[in-house]
């Protein structure tokens, strides 16, 4: 692992370093551009801290073994890109239904299908939200720098353990495949999962206001049943409507009620802004550059950057709409987040889209032109 201090580091390596410091001790994956360096680095480093790396036969098996490792008590992770993310969707639903903490990294590339395999995108954000079948709430974080590939990976593990849920690090090929400064701290804050303290504790039901039940591991003495089918608080399968409603609403509410704590917004120059640029991930870098340049030209622009993309901080976006005249949503896809923003803003401010496909990041100049047009 890297020593504490300043390093010129690849985004994917920073992600792997963050994972190991957050306590990741099991990684299963299948190689894919532009995510493979995460596997490479974990494979080299995880044995040194007593962990296990397994290259699986495909992405379906990768996430399945990560779920298994989590139930064996390990903090576990997998990393992939678009095609692998598609393959993982069924088991992502299984992880939600079984409330399995894990971290899934998607270094997004340009699709559909093989598409532009070596070029970046942010096209999978709705798949992260809705990709598996059924009703569930997801937590997804979106890094814009190499430093955040480290910091948000640590946070992803902590969120996964706090809320006992899969957490997605929705990176993109730009931040995964670039090198810039990483400052490795002496120590990171690490959250460990809450374990049952008595035989009365049930793994799928709790009176705790957080809605997060304690999680035993196999081999700790509990009669533990883990099933993707609808189950009672003790894990026994039961398809009754009330049990299904109980699971769906509790697992939804444990995320949505905690949204103010999960929320992570980076704001710049918004105090007197008339135009807000709302963005995330690598797209937020040219967005920020455009905001700085707009300010130099006397245009009152600000940046509203989502470091947590899901759950969407709807109240904060509504408050932003009350304050500014226009919101420009910048993203590297055909225009997906903008529809969510339109829904939330509901006509309170003008919402405009700068959406770019083709495996290329929007240019700072393009964002600036749009900001000036909206000012």
């Amino acid at each position: 692992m890297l020593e504490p201090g300043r390093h010129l580091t690849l985004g994917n390596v920073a992600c792997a370093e963050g994972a190991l410091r957050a306590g990741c001790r099991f990684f299963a994956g299948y190689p894919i551009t532009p995510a493979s360096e995460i596997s490479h680095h974990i494979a080299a480093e995880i044995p040194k801290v007593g962990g296990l790396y397994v290259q699986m036969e495909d992405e379906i098996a990768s996430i399945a073994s990560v779920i298994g490792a989590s139930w064996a008590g390990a903090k576990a992770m997998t990393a992939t890109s678009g095609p692998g993310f598609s393959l993982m969707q069924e088991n992502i639903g299984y992880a939600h239904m079984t409330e399995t903490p894990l971290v899934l990294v998607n270094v997004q590339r340009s699709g559909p299908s093989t598409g532009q395999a070596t070029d970046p995108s942010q096209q999978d954000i709705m798949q992260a939200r809705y990709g598996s079948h059924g009703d569930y709430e997801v937590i997804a974080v979106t890094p814009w720098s190499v430093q955040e590939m480290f910091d948000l990976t640590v946070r992803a593990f902590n969120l996964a353990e706090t809320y006992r849920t899969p957490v997605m690090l929705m990176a993109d090929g730009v931040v995964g495949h670039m090198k810039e400064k990483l400052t490795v701290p002496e120590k990171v804050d690490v959250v460990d999962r809450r374990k049952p303290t008595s035989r009365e504790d049930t793994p799928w039901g709790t009176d705790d206001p957080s809605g997060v039940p304690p999680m035993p591991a196999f081999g700790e003495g509990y009669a533990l049943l883990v099933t993707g089918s609808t189950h009672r608080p003790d894990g026994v399968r039961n398809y009754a409507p009330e049990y299904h409603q109980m699971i769906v609403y509790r697992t939804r509410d444990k995320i949505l009620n905690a949204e103010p704590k999960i929320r992570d917004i980076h704001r710049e120059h918004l105090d007197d802004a008339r135009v807000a640029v709302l963005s995330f991930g690598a797209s937020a870098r040219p967005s920020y550059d455009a905001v700085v340049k707009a300010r130099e030209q006397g245009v009152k622009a600000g940046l509203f950057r989502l470091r947590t993309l899901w759950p969407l901080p709807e109240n904060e976006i509504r408050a932003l709409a009350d304050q500014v005249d226009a919101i420009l949503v910048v993203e590297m896809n055909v225009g997906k987040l903008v529809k969510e923003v339109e829904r939330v803003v509901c006509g309170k401010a003008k919402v405009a889209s700068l959406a770019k496909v083709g495996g290329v990041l929007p240019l700072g100049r393009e964002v600036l032109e749009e900001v000036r047009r909206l000012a």
Partner: protein
Amino acid sequence: MTKVQQNILIGGTGGQGIVASGEFLSAALFAKGYEVVFGRSYGSEARGGSCRSEIMVSDHEINDLQFETSDILLLLSLPAYKKYMGKAKKGSIVIMDSSVMERVEGDVRDDVELIQVPARDIAVRLGNQIVANMVILGALSKRSDMVRLDLLKEAVERSMRPSMREINLHALEEGYNTV
């Protein structure tokens, strides 16, 4: 303090060490204390496709991740020349392998500082044409205020596999002495 940012573009073909030369150059600049953003782009081919390294170097935090025009352009192949020559700012440095220059047809820009280096010939003489990229970097270190030969050498010594270390160090020196 005014903000100084230099945009460096290295263009060539997969297999020429385009990403590797970006690695050594960005490591050398970072070691000097600069902020560096190093991006790479390549096709799905292991060899022979279009390939480029983009390095932004600054004495301040770098907001954006890409640039449209270069302050320093290093060209190692004819397709890269055709694709990227137009990106060089007026008056900026362009360093090019002279064996590529020989195959250029038509007018060549006269509003840039074009430096030809027999990089491939030197590399072949040293025993492996793959080090042409390092000859070009050596030449750059002679002409640039930001890039220092000793830091490039340190980067090579730090991360080049031992069997290739000597030839790469020689390539850097030869490039430096050619300009």
